[in-house]
């Protein structure tokens, strides 16, 4: 048994690049962004006395004449095509409600899932009655944003074999702004585990599925025990993700992998200690810079 007790110390976020305090593009509500009337007002801004003013704390983004402020700490604002990981909160008629870290619960319609067996047919009344057998409250799914409703709620679909119910693994909930947008958010990492980096900040870590399981797809979940070595890799990845998130490093396959490699000299449970966290994030930063340069 071990109880690690200590006095708290002031710790700063590890960053090799210029300090965030020098950044000019960060604004707080009420800051005047520009008094030039030639710009268009985007999200996170309002016009007061012909001056474009920020209404959220975040970073200013400009696309041509459109100025938006993207909040740094926010709930998930989904866009069509985003990959999300979510948890079923409610089973309703013909739809599931899914918690996806956005303002409103997302909706997964019965008509936008692949029924077990993979066949495409009209959803019958029987399917409606057996909805809870496919997905019940508390279950985790991976899905893609199909459309956005008027009120901002998301409509999801799982009409691809890569989406569907998630089996054994670990969920890590992080800020959506830490997830880097990429071509694919599904990665089979070479260290022996797989990762789904949901755009909504929910990250799913799971043992890399075998060939057969992958083909089964859909709603089948294996309850066989996961091997100890897989478990250790997943736990290490989980702690690495938390370390990276604590120091505000963008998450994508390379950064996670580099962090994993940097952490190998430490025991899994030690990674979350502040000083170890600093050390491995620093190493990750260096590796990322080397790769870029």
């Amino acid at each position: 048994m071990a109880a690690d007790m200590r006095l708290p110390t002031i710790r700063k976020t590890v960053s090799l690049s210029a300090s965030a305090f020098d950044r000019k593009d960060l604004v707080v509500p009420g800051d005047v962004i520009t008094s030039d009337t030639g710009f268009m007002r985007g999200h996170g801004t309002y016009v007061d006395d012909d001056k474009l003013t920020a209404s959220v704390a975040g970073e200013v983004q400009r696309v041509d004449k459109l100025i938006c402020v993207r909040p740094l700490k926010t709930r998930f604002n989904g866009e069509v095509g985003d990959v999300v990981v979510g948890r079923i909160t409610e089973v309703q008629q013909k739809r599931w409600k899914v918690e996806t870290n956005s303002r409103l619960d997302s909706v997964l319609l019965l008509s936008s899932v692949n029924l077990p067996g993979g066949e495409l047919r009209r959803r019958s009344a029987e399917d409606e009655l057996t909805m809870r057998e496919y997905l019940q409250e508390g279950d985790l799914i991976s899905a893609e944003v199909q459309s956005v409703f008027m009120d901002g709620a998301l409509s999801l679909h799982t009409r691809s074999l890569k989406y569907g119910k998630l089996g054994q693994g670990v969920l890590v909930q992080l800020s959506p702004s830490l997830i880097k947008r990429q071509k694919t958010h599904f990665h089979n990492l070479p260290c022996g585990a797989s990762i789904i980096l949901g755009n909504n900040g929910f990250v799913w870590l799971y043992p890399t599925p075998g060939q057969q399981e992958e083909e089964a797809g859909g709603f089948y979940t294996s309850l066989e025990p996961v091997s100890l070595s897989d478990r250790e890799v997943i736990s290490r990845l989980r702690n690495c993700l938390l370390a990276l998130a604590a120091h505000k490093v963008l998450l994508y396959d390379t950064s996670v992998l580099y962090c994993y490699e940097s952490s190998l000299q430490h025991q899994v449970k030690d990674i979350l200690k502040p000083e170890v966290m600093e050390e491995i994030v620093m190493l990750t930063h260096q590796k990322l810079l080397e790769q870029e340069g």
Partner: protein
Amino acid sequence: MARVQVSEAEKVYILHGIRDDLRVDGRGCEDYRHMEIETDVVSNTDGSAKVTLGHTAVLVGVKAEIGKPRPTVPTEGYLEFFVDCSANATPEFEGRGGEELGTELSNTLYKVFNNKRSIDLKSLCICAGEHCWVLYVDVLLLQCDGNLYDAISVAIKAALFNTKIPKVHISSDDEGGKEIELSDDPYDCMRLNVENVPCIVTLCKVGHRHVVDATLQEKACSVASLIISVTHKGTITCMRKVGGGSLDPESIFEMTEAGKRVGKALHAPLMKLLEQEESLGKKRQKVYTCFPGLPLVSPQPPREESGAK
């Protein structure tokens, strides 16, 4: 308490992990998360401490007031406990939501301290039958991330260690009336002996094994847990089963044994840390508001083309 949802498959994963002595965050079954302790954090109290355990954060303030001793024990002072589950910790505590948990926690604390050795209550007596010190121990939950009992007990021990009760002098005038005089010197104060103050260990039964310092996810997988408060000598001042399930007698004996072992080992590093902090004195930089997880800076590197500003 803050509740989390866990799917069946996740439960299976957690259960098997505990069976293999490798938990989701890489700990073994009897490992604690790392704990940060700081005393003397609130200036208006006579003693205070803040403890963070993982993301659980607890603030304890001790206030000493002069009161009347209980008629059954006229030569002893007493302790009062109050646990506040503020809506800060989780929205579930909004309004009266946290009340039930608060009473449960404070009642357990009364039980834990319901013995003659934890605190020398006689030292709190000022004048037998008339005046004594009443120590109000107020616990504030700042964040909930599982294992409240253990964090609270450590915080209380630290706060009691930090408590400074002003010295008083009793003088009687000619008519027999008594006057209590408070010492002017702020350094002339009484300290409590906290050597025997117990620490609570919560053991969660998950599957066929038990874990200490369970996270909320692990707690969701467990049917029942056992709370054991252990002194530095290894004696048990309170034991209690919590949760909706029942336990086998044999597993209770096993858990008692483990709880005693784990609890006994908590005291030495805690006392060492408290004494170390005490010896640092005013040189130590206070880090009171060190909450984890607040994003202070943008995760993205600054771009050359930075808006229209």
